[in-house]
């Protein structure tokens, strides 16, 4: 038994991809110090290599960069790159992890790849030499610019005598440090999020990858799509650099294999990323013919089916249901010949300019050894084994696993898993929350009201990045002469430790009350400089950044004169603006450490339990008289988990937890307030209850579609999957009546049609699971599954394979020719046009099982209106961002999980519930939260209550009270739409007031003397 007080309030996250990044940010926001260990030299993992992401076509880096910056700037996150874990000792709550960093110049596998430094321009070199002691190894002349807040071991500094906080030393040091650096870190929990690698396509020799120049992998194709990639965003054929006129995508390369040549699982993302790559290509060049060769399309996620349909119907991508067994190269042209059999059994030969192999995902080299090192058991597929009831826990207590490291999955599921792992870690380390967090104590803020403006301008060289193009000294001299400027100096790296020290010193010595930093992007560095101001007692809103790097030096490399002129303009505009900015106060409001969970099914109960274990109070509201939701009505999971037994266990755990208050037969009648400070009224059988809570979790689930087709409701032997499962498990009389007679399952009932153009995700896996069960227990019974593509994604592909081996028969039908069910004696007759046979087949069945889809609850809309939530096109709740914020709502403090989000299997609901708990914990863990800052304010005297702002605000913040619009500062996101739209100019966005914007624009427009 470990002394609870002795638990370590730190978490080690292994892997800096999107799952690791999410786990890290939720863990640190919930009060745990984070060590983020990344094997490569940069964070971002697979997502950083993507151009756009499905189904929104958002740019991957645009979504990822802010996350990376946030993590990098967090003083309680230590990032250790080019590092691996070499040993884990200790016990849950108190692990001792040894991390080894290997630089390129250390003796090791990378030693051979050591680079020679690039010669630097004279101006920068002499400046550097003037600044540095003789004989030191020196800061390397190559960029990138150092990142402030990095941390190098003092030992390294001792070794070379000079170091900067840039973490670049192991990579670029001129002096060859010949040893690796080991360090032992104490943490309470470990989150394994090391991701996967693409399948090595050379193994699929039949497609000629590595042999034929114009056969590429989807990873390489994606790189070509990237505007910042090797071809500058142009799709070209490797053999001759020409744009391909025809492209073939071949799916499932490396996945769904029944031989050892490839992996048996479905990699889950390839169907969708191919659709995306095809759509983006067609958008760039509508004349390019694209053919996708597939067997089943796994479009099982939110918005996937629509996206894939649009690829075919709107963008004209050809989908050919046929798997070519080989690709041949036509030497003379470099084209590829693909022979295939189409759906009509006709033999076709087609020639393509380029072939793209949609490669799957598999554990990276060394993953198995790494798992062994961690003491984590692997499942039959070589991934860490996790229980269905807790999909982020490994076999070793205290070590959690998230993202694709557990099973191939897409970005939203990886993000979900990251938060879920953070929640689980939080459960274990709740007592040690905040114990390892260093809080910054800033000096009391100086009051600068009424003071004469004293502006300090700091112009950064950024090493060579800016100085190579712009005459920094000249810009600095120019700045000195601008109105209000008391001091203007240049700095080599303004954001480095030395640079920030210098800025602070100058603020103090020169009595500055406004600061302009002419350097790089505020998006990445504003937070750093704001912090610096706080450290000197200045309000953080009193600093302005002029971007003379990304928006000047980098884009005007060929014209240094003009670039320098432009830099002067940008500095002038920044100075004019900063003269008018005012200190802005952010308010601290206390957080109510209670969660309101709406919905007492599997998801709701799991979220409630996790939050309670993390140390927070919970009020769980359930509309029925008993907890359980859909779990009450189902028998087992696709992997055979006994749901009834689990339900009993879960209900008991929830009921016996002293932090959870359960209100059954209850409903939420009103909900108001803002994050950290909500107030709701809950109607219970014994009257109305007022609940004050800091967060809300929507876990209201969904329901089974009640069909009106295929004789459902009119014939006793036509039933839904759920009804059939009940029969199967209970061995009831009705079941026995059906025994000995064939079973026909019809998939996609009520899904993937005009009315509901989405895939219900769960039905294929359940169908094959049930089919296997029937074949196992009822000798002589035949099972027919009438489908429109079998969607057993991830490890569930195994179930599909087993069902085929058991003799289950699969008949594919098209939506235009649906099966017909008619009574036949005391049984049923099912007629279906078999697409593969190209003939009609009549089946005699004792039972017809309809895979009826998942549809939103009828009262979802009412709840949505109450909480001001949005619905997706398909009627489920709409999250803040489909990819990176899958369990958040746009309104801060309200979270979503389970089937209320969309159709999902049991373990996916559990993961999402844990994820919502992890997200909610980042609010509840804090005693207070800051609200306000750059928010919109209404001048009531000018407001005419025209409702323009109310209608336009994407976050539904403005409300009309007593004839005037009111904007709650805690809810305002500072987007400025209301301010720009208000016809009476009654709304100003603080920090972007009209006066401030006009001042900057006028200063910019005014030419030099």
């Amino acid at each position: 038994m470990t002394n609870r007080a002795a638990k370590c309030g730190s978490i080690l996250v292994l892997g800096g991809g999107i799952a690791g990044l999410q786990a890290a940010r939720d863990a640190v926001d919930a009060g745990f110090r984070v060590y983020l260990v990344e094997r490569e030299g940069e964070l971002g993992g697979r997502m950083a290599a993507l151009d756009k992401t499905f189904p929104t076509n958002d740019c991957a880096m645009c979504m990822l960069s802010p996350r990376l910056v946030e993590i990098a700037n967090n003083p309680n996150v230590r990032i250790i790159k080019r590092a691996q874990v070499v040993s884990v000792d200790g016990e849950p709550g108190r692990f001792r992890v040894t991390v080894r960093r290997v630089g390129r110049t250390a003796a090791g596998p990378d030693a051979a790849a050591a680079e020679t430094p690039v010669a630097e321009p004279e101006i920068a070199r002499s400046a550097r030499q003037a600044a540095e002691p003789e004989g030191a190894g020196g800061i390397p002349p190559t960029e990138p610019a150092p990142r402030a807040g990095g941390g190098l071991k003092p030992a390294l500094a001792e070794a070379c005598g000079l170091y900067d906080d840039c973490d670049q030393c192991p990579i670029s040091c001129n002096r060859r440090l010949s040893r690796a650096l080991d360090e032992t870190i104490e943490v309470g929990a470990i989150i394994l999020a090391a991701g996967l690698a693409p399948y090595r396509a050379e193994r699929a020799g039949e497609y000629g990858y590595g042999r034929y120049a114009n056969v590429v992998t989807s990873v390489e194709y994606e790189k070509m799509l990237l505007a910042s990639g090797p071809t500058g965003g142009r799709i070209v054929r490797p053999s001759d650099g020409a744009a391909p006129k025809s492209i073939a995508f071949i799916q499932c390369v490396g996945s769904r294999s029944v031989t050892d040549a490839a992996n048996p699982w479905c990699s889950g993302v390839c169907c969708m990323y191919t659709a995306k790559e095809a759509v983006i290509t067609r958008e760039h060049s509508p004349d390019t013919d694209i053919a996708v060769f597939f067997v089943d399309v796994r479009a099982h996620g939110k918005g996937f089916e629509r996206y894939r349909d649009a690829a075919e119907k709107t963008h004209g991508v050809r989908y050919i249901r046929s798997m070519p067994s080989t690709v041949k190269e036509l030497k003379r042209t470099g084209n590829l010949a693909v022979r295939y059999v189409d759906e009509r059994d006709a033999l076709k030969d087609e020639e393509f300019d380029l072939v793209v192999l949609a490669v799957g995902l598999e554990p990276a080299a060394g993953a198995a050894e790494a798992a062994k090192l961690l003491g984590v058991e692997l499942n039959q597929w070589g991934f860490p084994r996790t229980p269905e009831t807790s999909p982020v826990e490994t076999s070793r207590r205290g070590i959690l696993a998230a993202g694709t490291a557990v099973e191939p999955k897409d970005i939203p599921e990886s993000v979900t898993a990251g938060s879920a792992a953070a929640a689980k870690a939080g459960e274990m380390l709740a007592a040690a929350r905040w114990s390892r967090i260093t809080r910054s104590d800033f000096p009391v803020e100086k009051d600068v009201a009424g003071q004469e403006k004293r502006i300090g301008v700091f112009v950064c060289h950024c090493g060579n990045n800016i100085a190579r193009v712009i005459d920094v000294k000249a810009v600095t001299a120019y700045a000195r002469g601008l109105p209000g400027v008391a001091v203007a100096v240049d700095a080599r790296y303004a954001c480095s430790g030395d640079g920030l020290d210098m800025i602070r010193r100058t603020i103090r010595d020169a009595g500055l009350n406004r600061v302009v930093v002419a350097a790089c992007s505020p998006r990445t560095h504003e937070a750093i400089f704001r912090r610096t101001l706080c450290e000197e007692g200045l309000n953080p809103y009193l600093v302005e950044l002029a971007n003379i790097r990304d928006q000047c030096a980098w884009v005007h490399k060929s014209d240094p004169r003009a670039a320098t002129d432009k830099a002067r303009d940008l500095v002038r505009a920044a100075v004019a603006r900063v003269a008018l900015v005012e200190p802005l106060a952010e308010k601290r409001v206390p957080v109510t450490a209670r969660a309101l969970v709406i919905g007492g099914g599997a998801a709701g109960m799991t979220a409630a339990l996790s939050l309670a274990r993390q140390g927070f109070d919970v009020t769980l509201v359930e509309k029925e008289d008993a907890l359980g939701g859909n779990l009450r009505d189902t028998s087992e999971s696709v992997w055979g988990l006994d749901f009834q037994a689990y339900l009993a266990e879960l209900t008991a755990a929830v009921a016996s937890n002293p932090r959870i208050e359960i209100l059954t037969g209850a409903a939420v009648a009103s909900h108001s307030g803002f994050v950290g400070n909500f107030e709701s009224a809950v109607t219970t059988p014994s009257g109305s209850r007022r609940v004050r809570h800091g967060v809300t979790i929507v876990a209201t689930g969904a329901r089974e579609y009640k069909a009106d087709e295929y004789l459902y409701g009119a014939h006793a032997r036509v039933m839904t999957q759920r009804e059939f499962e009940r029969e199967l498990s209970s061995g009831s009389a009705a079941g026995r009546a059906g025994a000995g007679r064939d079973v026909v399952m019809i998939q996609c009932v009520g899904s993937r049609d005009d009315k509901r153009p989405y895939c219900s995700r769960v039905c294929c896996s359940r169908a094959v699971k049930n089919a296997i069960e029937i074949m196992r227990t009822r000798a002589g019974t035949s099972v027919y599954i009438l489908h429109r593509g079998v969607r057993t994604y991830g490890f569930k592909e195994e179930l599909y394979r087993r069902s085929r081996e058991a003799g289950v028969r699969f008949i594919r039908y098209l939506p235009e020719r649906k099966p017909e069910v008619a009574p036949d004696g005391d049984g049923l007759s099912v007629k279906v046009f078999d697409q593969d046979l190209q003939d009609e087949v009549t089946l005699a069945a004792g039972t017809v099982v309809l895979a009826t889809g998942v549809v939103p609850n009828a009262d979802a809309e009412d709840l949505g209106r109450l909480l001001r939530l949005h619905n997706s096109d398909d009627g489920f709740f709409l999250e803040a961002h489909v990819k990176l914020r899958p369990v958040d709502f746009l309104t801060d403090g309200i979270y979503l999980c389970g089937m209320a989000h969309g159709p999902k299997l049991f373990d996916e609901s559990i993961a999402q519930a844990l994820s919502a708990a992890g997200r909610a914990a980042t609010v509840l863990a804090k005693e207070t939260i800051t609200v306000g800052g750059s928010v919109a304010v209404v001048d009531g005297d000018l407001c005419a209550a025209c409702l323009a702002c109310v209608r336009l605000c994407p976050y539904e913040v403005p409300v009309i009270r007593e004839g005037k619009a009111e904007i709650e500062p805690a809810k305002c996101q500072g987007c400025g739409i209301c301010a720009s739209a208000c016809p009476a100019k009654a709304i100003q966005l603080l920090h972007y007031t009209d006066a401030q914007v006009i001042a900057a624009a006028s200063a910019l427009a005014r030419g030099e003397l």
Partner: protein
Amino acid sequence: MTRDYAYFPGCSSRGTGAEFAESIRAVFEHLGIGLEELPDWNCCGATSGHAIAPRAALALEMRNLAQAARMSKPLAVPCAACFHNMRAARLAAQKGEVEPAAEALSAPRETLAAVEVVHPLEILTSPEVLAEVRSKVVESLAGFRVASYYGCLLARPPEAVKFDDTENPTRMDRLVEAIGAEAVDWSWKVECCGGNLALAARGVAVDLVARILTGAEQAGANAIAVACPLCHANLDMRQFEASRKLRRKIEVPVFYFSELMAIAYDLPKAEKWLKKHITTPFPLIDGLLDTDR
């Protein structure tokens, strides 16, 4: 590395594959590598045997393996089908999948499992021998652009045959290069030639042969090299039918790799073997070499 092998000629060695067997013998002699014929060898079962009566075919093979075991020499098997079957039989013995009756006719399974079965291409492309192969070349084969055709039996199934890469084998290509010809890379190295259907569905076989021939032509080859009498028979004999199917003349002479070696070594009997080909190789040879014909 041994220079002395037992040798399994196979049934075609005196019939349709006579030039293969004779050229192999001649070339090995030229290189000073011994080939001692297996005494009392029997049919290997070939494709028909092992399709219709797999257990009997396996037993036949095991009997051959037993003979080889008695000779205490590794067994060289030139014909791809025979080679394939022997390796498969040896794998079965290694796995312990041997029927008592088969064992009784041959030898205990441990003995069978230990017999070394090699293909002449494996011998010739071993590093030491390959150097010799190269050094004995007297006639330049410059201008011969050879597409090496391996057929299916040398490549599949990989766990039984273990001969080379399944999709892109290169042994024969390396040999072709070593004797001074250009080895053309092409995509039809292991394509089915339809040999099995040559009698039952001739049209299919012709179609497949046509694809292989055009593939070689497309890749810039002017000759095809093979390592199997049946591959040779199909590709060599059906070019007229293939031309009819394609509606244009296609003619790509097909050589056994050992014949190419014989040409490179200027062995006197080479012409005799080449005359047995249906698709005449002489226009190509005469065009490239100074012959005394």
